[in-house]
């Protein structure tokens, strides 16, 4: 599908989006960012959607017998196998002659960047007709906050404690978006629940592309991040504004930065208001800023935007 046909997709906004809810009555913590990502995506995709979720918070809070918060066809998959199981669902529905349906995965950062990566790679390789959405709360939250491949430098988790000598996570976030784009996937994007209309637009775009598509959405977790429940959207917006999270798309072989600010907001302010970064020293924060600047220098140099 070319960019031109994609542009003709009718825009979905909160004004015209369906009043129907497809993720409702779930047991996520109050203010859970992941549930914003799941809820909005399902409202864009609509009723004729098959939903697959590996182990993780969104599966755990959605299916608590007999409480079925998914109001569409939905199932929990094996932890590493969500992409291959979704591939199977899409193939099965096609074999049954079904038309006008979409298959979507919602997997966490751990379920995507670590444990489910191989199945996801295969799904993209086969160009199966599945939209894969990774909601990134930067740790294995459902099992009590362990470090994943998408946990950023300095983060306190239960497996990367902060003490006198070691100040939390020692590694940087994996370049997940670039890993996915390197497959030459039809469409990949990054998003943040702090910019919900941008996220809605990207889900809508992916909905209309046949074949494998991928969205990496930054989704706050008040419980794991040590933030007040009411700031979940604000904190996800600030992550973008201070440059630690970027909004971009990959399509037809081209990378595009959707937001390329002249100036970033304060990284220190973003970090110090979260319990998971409270222990960080000024030197730690300098290191985060240096890594951010290196990454942006690279993106601006290599991605035409």
């Amino acid at each position: 599908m070319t960019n031109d046909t994609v542009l003709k997709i009718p825009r979905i906004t909160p004004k015209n989006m369906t009043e129907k809810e497809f993720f409702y009555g779930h047991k996520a913590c109050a203010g859970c960012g992941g549930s914003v990502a799941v809820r909005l995506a399902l409202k864009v995709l609509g009723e004729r959607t098959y939903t697959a979720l590996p182990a993780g918070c969104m599966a755990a809070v959605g299916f608590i017998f007999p409480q079925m918060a998914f109001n569409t066809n939905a199932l929990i998959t094996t932890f590493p196998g969500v992409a291959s199981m979704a591939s199977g669902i899409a193939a099965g529905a096609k074999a049954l002659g079904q038309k006008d349906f979409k298959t979507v995965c919602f997997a966490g950062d751990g379920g995507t960047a670590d444990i489910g990566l191989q199945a996801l790679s295969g799904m993209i390789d086969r160009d199966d007709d599945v939209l894969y959405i990774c909601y990134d709360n930067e740790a294995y939250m459902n099992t009590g906050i362990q470090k994943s491949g998408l946990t950023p430098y300095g983060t306190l988790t239960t497996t990367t404690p902060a003490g006198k000598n070691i100040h939390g996570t020692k590694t940087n976030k994996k370049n997940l978006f670039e890993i996915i784009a390197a497959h030459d996937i039809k469409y990949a994007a990054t998003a943040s629940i702090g910019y919900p209309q941008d996220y809605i637009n990207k889900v809508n775009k992916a909905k209309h592309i046949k074949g494998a598509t991928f969205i990496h959405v930054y989704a706050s977790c008040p419980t794991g991040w040590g933030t007040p429940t009411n700031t979940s959207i604000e904190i996800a917006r600030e992550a973008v504004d201070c440059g630690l999270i970027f909004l971009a798309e990959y399509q037809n072989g081209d990378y595009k930065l959707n937001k390329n600010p002249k100036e970033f907001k304060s990284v220190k302010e973003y970090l110090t208001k979260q319990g998971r970064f409270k222990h960080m020293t000024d030197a730690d924060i300098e290191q985060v800023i240096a890594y951010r600047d290196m990454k942006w220098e690279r993106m601006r140099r290599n991605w035409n935007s």
Partner: protein
Amino acid sequence: MERPVKKDFKRPTHINDYPVGPQYEAGHLAETNASWRSVRPVVDNDKCINCLICYMVCPDGTIMKTDGKISVDYDYCKGCGVCAHECPKDAIAMVKEEL
């Protein structure tokens, strides 16, 4: 209301009452989430400009936009305060729940 509502559910008392496989009806809600809340969002419709930001960002989907007027499904709202925090017109107040 275009969202699932709580249905009566008889708790299984015998193994035969359970479904054969681990599957169940979509959108089946056996309980509400109202008891999680210590504060409730109260919308001042005079201040509200119907921008629908609160509607978009509610993690629980409990803001309703029906009939061009914002209202809240208090059965499932958890009182997180995201809606009030994001409202550009300060049209939502978080009010303490009284028992």
